[in-house]
């Protein structure tokens, strides 16, 4: 077989499909039949200087893919297989790999670097291959440049693969020494210098100790700054990328260098080529990110805590930084607004300006205003656009007090520019700026309203007019309308938009019918605006929302009538169906939330459900997420009546629950099971076997995204509440799952914030399941079935209490479970409860909580316990 490998690898890249397929098939067979030999053959192929570069590259790629995968479960599977491989095979493979680093063929070296890093990523955490780093670095100074380059590249990939704790400090020091020496200006080879600079980018995370040492840090920073001045573009770019990484990883160490870095970045922004200039701007954006985070930790009142103090670099650099950024705004590209992927210096500068405004607040306003005033009326469109962009950029951050007087003056100007300016880019930015005005300075939280009875009509007229403009301008106008509507979210009984409701809705529907509505995501923006207008509408326009139902239904019906579409058309059809189902969902939720409108709306329920089922039928393998969400809202509105749709709907429900890959769909479907349980109550019983089987399967799957698991537990509770003691037969499956999840949540507590958040959502799901089960079994003769689980549940509550990292929601749910347990089990659990810590300290803490929801739950628990222990 080994002899044939080369040919098979070449065939696998053949243009002709049948040859390629056959080759892929035989590679697959080889891999399945004899994995060690397969990998060894590939590594030999890679190492063999006589083989064609194409077969060597593919051999390397397949090796890499045999060691790593994107999906977590496949990845861990591959890791296990490598670890289980015959040690002598592994030794031979590794020898081949190290040998290939000296190859004269650049592609072979580069692929090998990645493969070595993957092997290291598996083995170093297991304390295997300890000699790797030593042997890579042993005689790096004597190596020929191409080997040195490959070695540095390997070190870079290695740092990307393994976490800093598995590499000891001695090795870290050696890696950094090699890397920094490779970056030095005295290094003769540009390839080596580039590889070293790129390696540093990945090695920065390992350099914690070195950055704490002033001398070492000074040296590293000097080398990086020097590299930013290299005549080689790629090296300058890599060096700026290092600076960006340093600004976020070592923000607190930047102070001594910030002045020099400002000079370097300012020069790059003004003079260097665009890729470098973009990274130079990114440095300041990244510093803004850090300072915004720190100030959020401070919590505004400076009583909060942050591990890192704020150095106010942005505030200090402001007088020089802002003019530099304003200059970039004038370097727009023609038609950049029509290109979804566009990213240029003007956009990066504007984005950074937005971040600066959020970082420093009011201070930015006087620095930007002269630029706006000077440029906004200039005949050159670039100047008007830049001025408008600058204005739009500073609308978030500064206080309303500071901005409102300016915005009041500017609003009229903006409205007029949106209709009259001859340039599309200016209009685009003007509409965007209006949207930001409405987003940040309009709404019930703002004291002095920007939109008044005097200008409301004009504002709406201009926006609706703009929706007839070119797609990118019309899309921004829709976005502006979105925020205008959102500002009236809790306006009360009468909305200033009500008199225009009909006109707004008609204009938006007209936009969705535009032939060019597919460009610049215009159609999506129009439906999103429509959704928000409906959401924020008041009772006085309820009749018009009702009239919208058949309109959207007809639109959805039209998409279903078209047959025999090509695949790209089908994708567009599915997207449109998504928008329409989304819109119906919003309408259902709106009309369903008020008893008066709900019953009139329900006239349409049968027809709407029929349409949703047909949307599902359009696809074979997956369900449509938007249709699923809308069905949840419909079930909530219809109540028990929903039972009549179940026979037909059930298979899609099951399909949704089986969708591991698109976990959002699975999550949404789990939520819909909850809606249906509440709507149908015990009428859901005939479907429970299937649903529970699927939910249990979801829980035991390691393929399913973990965020779906907590809602599945909550869903157990919903089902138990709906079917009561009929939940009995699921207890033996559900309870052990809940128990092991509870134990897991106790173990994972106390790690990082993200994990704590997940742990709390998991706890909440488990607790909601318990509450539902206890309340479901209440008053049933089968309550005693639950007694056996009580000790564990009480222990779980105690462990949550002792963990001290629960959030308010968990606290409320947990103490509620204590009440439900006492309520349902009564005297059977009396002595158990009395022994538990939760019934005393935890309960007392909740009773004196400031949070009324917690207090309410606690009072319930107190009542239930006092009954349980008195009988």
């Amino acid at each position, binding site marked *: 077989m080994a002899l044939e490998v080369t040919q098979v690898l070449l065939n696998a890249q053949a243009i002709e499909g049948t040859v390629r397929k056959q080759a892929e098939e035989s590679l697959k067979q080889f891999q399945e039949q004899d994995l060690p030999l397969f990998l060894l053959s590939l590594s030999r192929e890679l190492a063999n200087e006589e083989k064609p570069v194409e077969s060597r590259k593919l051999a390397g790629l397949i090796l890499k893919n045999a060691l790593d995968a994107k999906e977590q479960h496949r990845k861990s599977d591959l890791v296990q297989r490598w670890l289980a491989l015959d040690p002598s095979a592994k030794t031979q493979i590794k020898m081949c790999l190290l040998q290939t680093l000296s190859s004269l063929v650049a592609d072979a070296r580069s692929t090998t670097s990645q493969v070595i890093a993957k092997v290291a990523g598996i083995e170093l955490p297991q304390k295997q291959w300890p000699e790797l780093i030593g042997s890579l670095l042993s005689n790096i100074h004597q190596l020929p440049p191409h080997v040195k380059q490959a070695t540095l590249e390997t070190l*870079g990939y290695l740092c*990307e693969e393994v976490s800093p704790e598995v590499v000891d400090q001695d090795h870290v020091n050696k890696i950094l020494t090699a890397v920094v020496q490779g970056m030095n200006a005295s290094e003769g080879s540009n390839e080596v210098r580039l590889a070293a600079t*790129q390696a540093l980018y990945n090695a920065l995370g390992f350099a914690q100790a070195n950055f704490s040492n002033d001398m070492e840090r000074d040296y590293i920073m000097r080398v990086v700054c020097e590299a930013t001045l290299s005549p080689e573009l790629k090296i300058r770019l890599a060096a700026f*990328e290092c600076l960006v990484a340093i600004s976020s990883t070592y923000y607190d160490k930047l102070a001594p260098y910030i002045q020099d870095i400002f000079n370097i970045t300012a020069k790059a922004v003004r003079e260097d080529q665009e*890729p470098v200039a973009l*990274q130079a701007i*990114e440095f300041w954006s990244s510093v803004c990110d850090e300072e915004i985070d720190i100030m959020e930790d401070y919590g505004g009142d400076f009583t909060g805590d942050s591990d890192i103090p704020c150095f106010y670099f942005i505030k200090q650099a402001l007088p020089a930084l802002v003019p530099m950024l304003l200059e970039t705004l004038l370097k727009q590209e023609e038609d950049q607004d029509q290109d979804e992927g566009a*990213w240029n210096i003007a*956009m*990066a500068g*504007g*984005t950074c300006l*937005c971040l600066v405004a959020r970082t420093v607040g009011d201070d930015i306003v006087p620095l930007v205003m002269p630029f706006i005033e000077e440029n906004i009326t200039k005949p050159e469109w670039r100047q008007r656009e830049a001025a408008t*962009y600058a204005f*739009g950029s500073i609308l978030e951050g500064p206080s309303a007090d500071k901005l409102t007087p300016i915005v009041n003056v500017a609003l009229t100007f903006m409205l007029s520019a949106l209709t009259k300016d001859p340039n599309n880019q200016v209009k685009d*930015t003007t509409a965007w700026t209006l949207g930001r005005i409405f987003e940040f300075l309009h709404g019930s939280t703002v004291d002095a309203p920007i939109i008044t009875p005097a200008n409301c009509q004009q504002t709406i007229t201009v926006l609706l007019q703009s929706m007839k403009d070119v797609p990118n301008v019309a899309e921004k106008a829709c976005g502006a309308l*979105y925020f205008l509507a959102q500002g009236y979210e809790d306006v*009360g*009984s*009468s909305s200033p938009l009500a008199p225009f409701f009909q006109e707004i809705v008609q204009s938006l529907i007209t936009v969705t019918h535009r032939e060019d509505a597919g460009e610049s995501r215009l159609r999506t923006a129009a*439906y*999103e605006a429509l*959704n*928000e207008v409906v959401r924020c509408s008041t*009772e*006085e326009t309820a*009749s018009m929302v009702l009239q919208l139902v058949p309109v959207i239904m007809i639109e959805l019906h039209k998409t279903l009538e078209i047959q025999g579409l090509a695949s790209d058309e089908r994708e567009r059809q599915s997207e449109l169906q*998504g928008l329409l189902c*989304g819109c119906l*969902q919003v309408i259902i*939720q709106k009309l369903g939330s008020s*008893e*008066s409108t709900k*019953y*009139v709306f*329900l*006239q349409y329920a049968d027809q709407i459900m029929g349409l949703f089922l047909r949307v599902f039928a359009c696809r074979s393998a997956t369900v449509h997420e938007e249709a699923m969400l809308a069905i*949840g809202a419909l079930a*909530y509105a219809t109540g028990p009546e929903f039972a009549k749709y179940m026979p037909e709907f059930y298979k899609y429900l099951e399909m949704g629950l089986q969708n591991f890959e698109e976990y*959002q769909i699975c999550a*949404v479907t789990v939520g819909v099971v*909850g809606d249906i349980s509440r709507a149908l109550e*015990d009428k859901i019983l005939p479907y429970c076997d299937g649903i529970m089987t699927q939910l249990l399967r979801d829980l035991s799957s390691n393929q399913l995204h973990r965020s779906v698991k907590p809602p599945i537990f*909550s869903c157990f509770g*919903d089902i138990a*509440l709906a079917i*009561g003691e009929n939940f009995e037969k699921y207890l033996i499956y559900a309870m052990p799952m809940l128990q092991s999840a509870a134990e897991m949540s106790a173990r994972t507590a106390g790690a990082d914030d993200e994990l704590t958040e997940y742990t709390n959502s998991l706890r909440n799901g488990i607790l*909601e399941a318990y509450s539902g089960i206890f309340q479901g079994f*209440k008053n049933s003769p089968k309550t005693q079935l639950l007694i056996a689980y009580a000790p564990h549940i009480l222990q779980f509550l105690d462990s949550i209490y002792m963990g001290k990292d629960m959030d308010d929601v968990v606290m409320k749910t947990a103490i*509620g479970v204590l*009440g*439900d347990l006492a*309520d349902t089990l009564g005297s059977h659990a009396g002595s158990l409860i009395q022994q538990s810590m939760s019934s005393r300290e935890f309960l007392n803490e909740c009773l004196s909580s400031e949070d*009324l929801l917690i207090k*309410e739950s606690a*009072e*319930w628990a107190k*009542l239930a316990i006092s*009954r349980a222990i*008195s009988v």
Partner: protein
Amino acid sequence: MSPSSDLLRRPFKRPLLSDQQRRRDLSLKRQEQSRDSQLHARRVSSALLSLPLEPGASSTEYYSDLHLASEVASKILKGGLEGRKWFQKQLMLPEWMIDVPRRLPQDWFVLARPAGERCLVVSYGGTTVSRRRNGTVLHRFPSALSDGCCRTKAQPSCSILDCIFHEMDQTYYVIDMLCWRDYSLYDCTAEFRFFWLKSKLAETRVCDPPSYYHRYRFSLVPRYTCDLTALHTAYTGAVPYVKDGLMFYNKHAHYQPGITPLALVWKDQNCSKYVVDTNNEGKVPSHQQIVLELQRDGKVTTSDNPPVVFGCLGLDLIQKLGTLQSPYLLRFAIGDGGLTIVDGKLERADLHYLGKSNRARAFADSYSKIMFQSMVRGSSLKIDDLIAAISSSDDGANGPDVEMMDGKKALWKRSVWIVPHSIGSAHHLLLLMTFGSYYILRRIDTFEGANDLPLQPGTADIFFWYISRLLS
């Protein structure tokens, strides 16, 4: 290894505004709220049904055993007290009307309150239980309410009614509905609850004369939108029960447990025999007597949320009181110094300690009750004031009342705190339900024209509700 592709920022001008994510989030929020609301209803009904049972009349005897009680008995009692404390938080309690709310004829219902004990009637698990305001059981009986007697027991379901038991004709007069056949009405406006109450009671036999499976008769208390005619009818009109003042309900208010200014009670000598509080001998004491709760810090307060402080007890008095059962309720007389009100706020009260309160009392007086009683003794709010308020309110009926809206907004925020499970639809409170007549007429057209659309029972109800609103 090139980081630039991962680090690429999304330009601010193209935020990834995901309405889809918003839709997902709002769905999750709705699901979370329904779940909480469902659990809340289960807990309420469970607690209502299984509070310790003590026969109605013997409650005083029950409490008098306090000092002799064995350990077990004291635990039962503790359970009882806990239960009552918890229970009192479940009833919506009207404030006493000390000034006339704005937009009375637009936003309020009026009804003539039957004299008797306020109680919650719960039917569930084949029986019906009524509980007084303090949580003690009044009756346990079979009724024609859903799942209210063993004969009807088929599908477990729960109904909760807010009633006044009228001794003389042994009838439960229904004033509000909290839950009907498991359908929770907590989050519905008063206007809808009353509509539902009327149409649902009519569908059942609960208003029939008593029978073996239906021991007590239920009867609906008629209510009207509070215009001059309605006020006159409620005030002077004949009713089959003894009147005890008038009750006012804000049409847009949800059922909000605890004391609320969105339900009001008003009395005078003509429509109530019990205007001025009497003492145990049924006589009007020379000075107004009030019951206040003693807080840990020595302050004595009303039962409002937040409580209104009337004064502070000296340490010597607190020590003299010795150990008290929670809640620490004390009786005071208001001396000749009376109540000093500055800018609508209580500045000082001339309190004289009388003694501990009756043990059956579950909670202190509310601020509005004390103020109303105080006014009844002096310059009270007269029926003419109500009439005048209605007449003048007509002028402003067309324009939106800005101050009223502000007031409601403030209330809305408060109600969010007090009725947490109804956050999702709290905006109902703000809605003025101004479906125009245009819309109603349009609907009539549609219904008449579209014979193929079968009218479902629920729809018909709603439809006629609209019509009745239109005509009223």
